[in-house]
């Protein structure tokens, strides 16, 4: 599925996203499983809240990490991966 700027995503049902002090990373928890997210992936999913569009997420992260090259492409890639794994769902 092509990711568009106007798309809005939310965490999939029965999934929980939280910061973990002991692992020093964000995690996604769901029945029978968990995923530890690396820094970039965690930053993206932290903004997937059922309200922000992909455009808003991208703009927010470009502002937060002005020196990161190709960040927009990485953000789209992360959203694609999360969709493919069914961690998030499109709501519009």
């Amino acid at each position, binding site marked *: 599925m092509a990711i568009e700027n106007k798309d809005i995503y939310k965490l999939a049902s029965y999934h929980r996203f939280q910061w973990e002090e002991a692992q020093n990373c964000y995690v996604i928890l*769901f029945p029978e499983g968990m995923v530890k997210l690396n820094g970039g992936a965690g930053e993206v999913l932290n903004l997937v809240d059922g309200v922000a569009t992909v455009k808003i997420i991208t703009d927010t992260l470009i502002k937060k990490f002005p020196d990161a090259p190709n960040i927009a492409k990485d953000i789209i890639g992360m959203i694609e991966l999360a969709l493919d794994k*069914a961690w998030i769902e499109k709501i519009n």
Partner: protein
Amino acid sequence: MDDRNNGVSASTTATQPLWLLAEITYRCPLQCAFCYNPTDFDKHTQNELDTDGWMKVLREARDLGALQLGISGGEPLLRPDIEDIVIEAHKLGYYSNLITSGAGMNEKRIDALKSGGLDHIQLSMHDITEEINNFITNTKTFKLKQKVAAMIKDRGYPMVLNVVIHRYNIDHIKEILEMAEGLGADYVELANTQYYGWSLVNRDQLMPTKEQVLHAEKITNEFRERVGNKMKVFFVVPDYFDERPKKCMNGWGEVFMIVAANGDILPCHSARVIPNLKFPNVNDSPLKAAWYDSPAFNKFRGDDWMKEPCRSCSEKENDLGGCRCQAFLLSGDAESADPVCTKSPNRNLIDQAIKDSQNPGIEAKPIVFRTNQNSKNISEGKEKERLEKFHATP
């Protein structure tokens, strides 16, 4: 530390217990022939940790990094304090899972669990037929399970069904999956019987044929293609029919911590079958010391403990030599390769077990159901004939 376990040194591997399994009681109204609980569970029904003990376990494990909590048994709902334990787990930030047969569930309790923050319920199902359900659990629980499944769905929990697969239900896989779909299951775990505890006692009677397993896997794959992401189906392969062992518990002391009903702190459910390993207990050891410093948790961490053929095997990282309990139970040596591996000099033990289970006379031998009386009998050595080929009481 003391001088237990011949002074095995501490691991240098950086590990964290991500999963905590609280086997909160070994009492259970069901009497399943394949139960993986220890056959001597009867000894541990009088000395269960109390509520405060479990609260302490939850806090300490969370501090160590545990995230996923399984509240299991026996039947956990036999304890009146599950609701309090769930509230504490939720406060601490666990993703909590109640693993139940459904016995003891009612409207009041499921509402209290929901408001306490329980994240999901894993319900065991046995078959599409009342006859097989009641036969293998030795109880009349078929209708109860249907009722509890509906209750789980109604309260908006993810519906996770666990079906242990054996000779008596393996040819019903298609119908079982369709039943799960009809109940609105989100996750289904088809767990082929692994032979520990009661299932090892009844191995000859429970084991299907390789052809049945292959057929069941094919049906499962076809079903997956049809339903897609709507329902996730896990097919836990039976290692006996494989050529390489499973990476048991994802490695000893790597990500799983189990606390047994009496407070024993274990790297896997059946670790206590291995002789000369003294496991720490919640009553005399903090979880942190148990995980990082106890000789028992360090004994099989990583691969320093391996002998040949594992030590020089190019595939050793894939399975870490398989299961230590299975290696001991079948071969008598916990440091040997899991006999499932075709490179193991003991593979003949698995091939013989497969052959024995196909002996047409085998079904004439009665199944030993998981009852308190049978547990006592086994502890007293009364099932000697069945158990003499194993190197410990499972």
